[in-house]
């Protein structure tokens, strides 16, 4: 118990902060912060597995998040029959061509010795294959995008409940990680960072511009929800009764029946959105707890010890007969799959998929700040990092507004400098994150909750 005191203290402070937001700002804001904290926690767990367990640097988090989001779209949206009829065949043919191309390349790689001719012929096959696919798929893509472009213009998905996408998102992200890991994991740490960053940009470029698959920058809105809709809740009897019971003390004070009804309506509207957010919180909490149990088990298993050995001294681990390459690939896939889950969760919560919103600042670097600040190698630390950093990211604007007003209290409102500072309040969050990261790296390089190795 005493050993874990700092963990408990850190989490209690975090919870109190969120509760304070609930009390002073509103419960709606507090819960939306809490939900995004949970999603961030899932992302940091994925990054932490790669960086903290194995020392692999992955700056491609944004790409896996987006793929998870894409999974949510492909699973939950109903298929657009007309688009399938218009261009489905062409798309399937192109997919088939891609499969053939990959198989041919694999065959050549297996069959022939490494030589210049082999390299050039593979390059020729890939280039001609890409051209062939591009020109053969063109009419199909145009036909699909022409189908009611204002509403659909894409193939749609499978029409399944969106919850399934959390698993499919993990599979998508894991698949991408497999490909990237196969080609890039041999690179030195900082090269790997740059390569993964750029590959994630390629993924985003594809998601943004392949409208037939993702609707691109036209966004997909109104995704199905695993939680009830506010509008439905507001007309459901049991929910109204629940709200009435919950607020009975306050409502009984109002004498006038009409006023009371109006107050109740107001409370029901507020309550419905809080209730929906609570549903999400419950779902997310389940995911976080399951992942936490799994990752903790893995950390203290023989496999976890092996990963730490590989991280701390690759050559020694190799000499002991551990397959470093294979284990690196495995952990790269596992970590990315977890990030994919988070991506699907994020889109599930928002109910919309906006490829344009995936930016490396928010989805790669911020997550890294979370991992470093929280404590790499320690799952509780990583989750805490997700909470602390997301909380500050959201609350940075109010905090800095308060500070600016506090320090410039003597200066009149019309002062140009003060007005300028107040106008740029949203950007102080970058400053806060940067300074926080620099200070933590300097004075507490292992993070708020450092990794502890217990040898049992």
């Amino acid at each position, binding site marked *: 118990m005493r050993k874990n005191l700092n963990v408990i203290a850190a989490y209690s402070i975090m919870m109190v902060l969120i509760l304070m937001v609930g009390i002073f700002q509103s419960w709606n804001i507090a819960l939306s912060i809490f939900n995004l904290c949970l999603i961030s926690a899932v992302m940091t767990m994925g990054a932490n597995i790669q960086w903290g367990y194995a020392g692999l640097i992955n700056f491609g988090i944004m790409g896996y998040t987006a793929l998870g989001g894409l999974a949510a779209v492909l699973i939950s949206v109903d298929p657009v029959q007309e688009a399938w009829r218009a261009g489905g065949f062409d798309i399937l043919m192109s997919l088939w061509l891609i499969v053939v191309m990959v198989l041919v390349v694999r065959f050549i790689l297996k069959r022939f010795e490494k030589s210049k001719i082999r390299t050039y012929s593979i390059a020729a096959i890939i280039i001609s294959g890409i051209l062939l696919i591009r020109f053969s798929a063109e009419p199909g893509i145009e036909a699909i995008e022409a189908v009611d472009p204002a509403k659909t213009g894409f193939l749609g998905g499978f029409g399944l409940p969106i919850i399934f996408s959390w698993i499919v998102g993990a599979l998508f992200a894991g698949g991408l990680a497999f490909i990237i890991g196969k080609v890039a994991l041999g690179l030195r740490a900082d090269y790997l960072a740059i390569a993964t960053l750029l590959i994630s940009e390629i993924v985003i470029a594809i998601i943004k511009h392949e409208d037939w698959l993702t609707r691109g920058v036209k966004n997909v809105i109104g995704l199905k929800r695993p939680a009830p809709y506010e509008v439905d809740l507001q007309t459901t009897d049991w929910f109204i009764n629940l709200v009435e019971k919950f607020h009975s003390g306050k409502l009984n004070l109002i004498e006038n029946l009409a006023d009371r009804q109006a107050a109740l309506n107001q409370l029901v509207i507020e309550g419905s959105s809080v209730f929906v957010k609570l549903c999400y919180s419950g779902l997310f909490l389940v995911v976080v707890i399951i992942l936490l149990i799994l990752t903790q088990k893995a950390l203290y298993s023989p496999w976890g010890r092996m990963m730490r050995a590989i991280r701390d001294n690759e050559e020694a681990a190799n000499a002991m007969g551990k397959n470093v390459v294979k284990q690196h690939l495995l952990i790269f896939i596992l970590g990315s799959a977890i990030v994919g889950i988070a991506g699907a969760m994020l889109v599930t919560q928002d109910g919309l998929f906006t490829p344009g919103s995936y930016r490396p600042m928010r989805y790669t670097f911020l997550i890294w700040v979370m991992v470093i600040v929280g404590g790499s190698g320690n799952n509780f630390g990583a989750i805490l990092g997700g909470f602390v950093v997301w909380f500050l990211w959201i609350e940075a604007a109010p905090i800095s507004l308060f500070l600016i007003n506090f320090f410039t209290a003597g200066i009149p409102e019309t002062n140009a400098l003060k007005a300028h500072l107040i106008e*740029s309040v949203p950007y102080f969050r970058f400053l806060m994150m*940067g300074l926080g*990261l620099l200070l933590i790296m300097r004075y507490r390089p292992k993070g708020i909750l450092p990794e502890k190795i217990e040898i049992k």
Partner: protein
Amino acid sequence: MDFVNAIILLLNYIFIPALTYGSQLALGAIFVTLIYGILRFANFATGDMMSFGTMITILFTWYFQSLGVSLGVLPTALIAIPFGIIFMILYMLLIDKFVFKYYRHQKSPPVQFAMVSIGVMFVTQAVVRIIIGPADRRFFDGEKFIIKAREFKEMTGLNEGLAIKSTQVLTIFVTIVLVSLLFWFLNKTKTGKSMKAYSDNEDLALLSGIDPKKIVLVTWVIAGILATIGGALYGLDKSFKPFTYFNNMLPIFAAAIVGGIGNPFGAFLGGYVIAFSEILLTYAYKKFFMYVLPESMEPDSLVQLLSTDYKFAVSFSILVIVLIYRPSGIFKGKVL
């Protein structure tokens, strides 16, 4: 005649824009490569440092414009650039003193440096946005075109116009001068040679009495010059927006690595490799073929290898391929 038209078409839409863009990338890539070769880390704050230098240049440009100072046909920003450079160098030295120096003394691994540079990136981004805001800014004044497309058509009687913007000529000219000076400095002067030695083998260089403090200082000074001029030229040619500058970090990294990171000459060429491949692969050649081929063979489609949406993706794919097959870059890196 058609053949000349085709050549002019390529010049106007591919060659000159690519040369300009490549020069801008090249300056950034040399900046990245110098930091990598001498201070030994991948600087993720590259784009934002460039935007900081450009921001100072813009502020001084506005100041000079308000004073009524101008260079006539040339943009006022040219007088402002030296001030931008001074502030940029001061900012870099400040950051080096408070942030990077500590890790250099600790002999931290490159990954930790990279993480720290992400912290610097956040801070710089905040500083730029707080001071000048995230909006798109144009600060070009003076004569916009050297040759206008219409004038060129009238002059030569060709169908295709050739438009040359003054910023394009300025960019290419300044890049050539700056890069020649830099290579002269690195190859001929004592300080330059000691920088090379330091980059090659730190311990040996220290043994032979090279002062590491001086090397670091000179590196940041050169970096400041390159970052500010590169950023300001990009801003003059296109426009200044902090987010674009942050994004430009990616093709700049690609250029530096493709050229062989640590090798300034490689980085210089890498900038053009990236720029030309981006533009060559995404240009629609329909009009070109209409001039070159006889009428019966004219293509119906746009004859575009990739849609322009994939501009960035092209350079990143090149980078990934280079990284996998030749991690030391086309021109063999790490020699300075």
